[in-house]
């Protein structure tokens, strides 16, 4: 573009645009037509379109959010006892035909919704608090969800214990003794030996009542490197299962009575069919209860026992360097170390920054959508 181009002045542009606009004849009845349309109640096409079809994805998204929120609120607000009594009334009042299918459909959502994590704290938090062996590991059973029911808590824990050299076998024996002495057993045992350093993972099942005691004893076997424990309150889940089993048992008994009273072959076959369905459902629930009872009765403690690696084995050293190679490796180490320190040091800052960027991008997109009709 040449540099000597002269920009038109405001007056020149006004004159030119006036001439260009003035060349366009104006419809004589334009204003009257518009006014008549307005008085007749005509709607602008954009308004009508938006009112009928505007932003369908937004409406769908809002509807989905509302439905999910309502469903979550309903599941959380209805107490498990109310659900249980509803199930009871369903199974006892209805005929055998509806029992066989109705209970089966409700079983899984009810169990899933009544599972409550212990104390609301994830296991990782406890692991952080207990690492290093400063504080004793505790699994405090949370308050039971169902009044009058015996609290049932599934306790789990894991420990990594380092023992002195040559003490591996003794420690394993001690673990077995501890488990047996508490009334439990060693459910799984795996050991290996890397070089001259043996290690092994042992899964102990100990009665829940003595879980904390065993945990404390195991911590004394050596130096605790990593420790975590958690408890899950399954009282409500257990109570739900029992209630369903009770009602299904009653239904099964009723069906058996009906079976004895049936006189025709079709009646006998129909009752037999329902009876089989109820029996299968009952056995499934009893299996679930047995499994849950076992998990609640016996806590699971996973212990990793290892001896320290001999000197020179755990940290293989590079051959000594000198000159350019040393300088190069020092530079690489310094660079990677610096990057690591930068990332670790700026962790929270980066998180905040990423959040801000995400918010800004979302706001920008929203602004564009909102202002799309404007220039």
């Amino acid at each position, binding site marked *: 573009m040449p540099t000597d181009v002269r920009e038109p002045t*405001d007056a020149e542009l006004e004159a030119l645009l006036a001439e260009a606009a003035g060349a366009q004849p104006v419809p004589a009845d334009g204003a009257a037509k518009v006014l008549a349309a307005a008085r007749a109640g005509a709607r602008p096409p954009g308004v009508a379109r938006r009112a009928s079809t505007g932003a369908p994805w937004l409406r769908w998204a809002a509807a989905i959010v509302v439905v999910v929120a309502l469903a979550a609120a309903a599941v959380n607000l209805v107490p498990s006892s109310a659900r249980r009594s509803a199930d009871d009334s369903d199974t006892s009042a209805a005929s055998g035909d509806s029992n066989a299918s109705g209970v089966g459909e409700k079983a899984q959502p009810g169990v899933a919704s009544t599972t409550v994590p212990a104390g609301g704290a994830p296991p990782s938090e406890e692991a952080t608090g207990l690492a290093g062996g400063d504080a004793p590991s505790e699994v405090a059973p949370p308050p039971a969800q169902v009044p009058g029911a015996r609290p049932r808590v599934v306790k789990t824990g894991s420990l990594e214990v380092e023992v002195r050299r040559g003490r591996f076998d003794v420690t394993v024996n001690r673990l077995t003794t501890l488990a047996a002495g508490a009334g439990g057993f060693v459910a799984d045992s795996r050991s290996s030996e890397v070089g001259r350093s043996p290690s092994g993972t042992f899964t102990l099942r100990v009665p829940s009542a003595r879980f904390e005691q065993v945990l404390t004893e195991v911590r004394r076997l050596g130096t605790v490197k990593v420790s975590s424990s958690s408890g899950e309150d399954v009282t409500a889940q257990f109570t739900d299962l029992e209630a369903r089993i009770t009602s299904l048992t009653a239904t099964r008994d009723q069906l058996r009575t009906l079976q004895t009273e049936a006189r025709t072959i079709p009646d006998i076959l129909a009752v037999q069919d329902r009876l089989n369905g109820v029996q299968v459902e009952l056995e499934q629930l009893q299996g679930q209860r047995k499994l849950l009872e076992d998990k609640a009765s016996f806590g699971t403690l996973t212990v990793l026992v290892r001896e320290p690696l001999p000197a020179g084995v755990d940290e293989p050293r590079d051959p000594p360097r000198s000159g350019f190679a040393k300088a190069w490796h020092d530079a690489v180490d310094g660079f990677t170390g610096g990057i690591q320190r930068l990332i670790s040091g700026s962790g929270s800052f980066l998180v905040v920054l990423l959040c801000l960027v995400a918010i800004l991008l979302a706001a920008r997109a929203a602004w564009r959508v909102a202002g799309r009709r404007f220039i």
Partner: protein
Amino acid sequence: MDELERWLQEDYARAYRTACLMMRNPADAEDAVQEAFLRAWRFRASLPDGPAARPWLYRVLVNACHSRLRAEIPRRDRTAPATGVDRRPADGPGPAEAVEADHRASAVRGALDDLPDHLRAVVVLRYWSGLSEAEIATAIRRRPGTVKSRLHEARRRLAAHPALDAALAEEA
């Protein structure tokens, strides 16, 4: 007669020609003005009082023009050059002057057509509709600084446009 009707009666011609310059098609311009007025009529309860009403109404008009440009017009030919020569009053300039004026008007329209929508709008609003930079900012919902920079950019492009350059020389 309320303020909106009065604006329609007094400013219809200017609004219609504003839409013509922005949309380059008289039929589309007529539809856009009608749509804009119906919109304003529907929401006239929120019409500001006093001088603030004018940029508000032009905002509605600009929006109507742009929504039509985006939604419908690109699918068909939107250029329908105006022919004002035959409609000039008898006591106006002579045929030679009329032809020259029409030639300049075509050149100006051609130069405006080559501007992008967002620049053409501010030029038309500023130099034809007579809105101030602040009023344009209200009309297009942008900051006054944005309006100023867009006007500067539009003037620069118009100055470099050969058709407008010839029209300016012709007018001088």
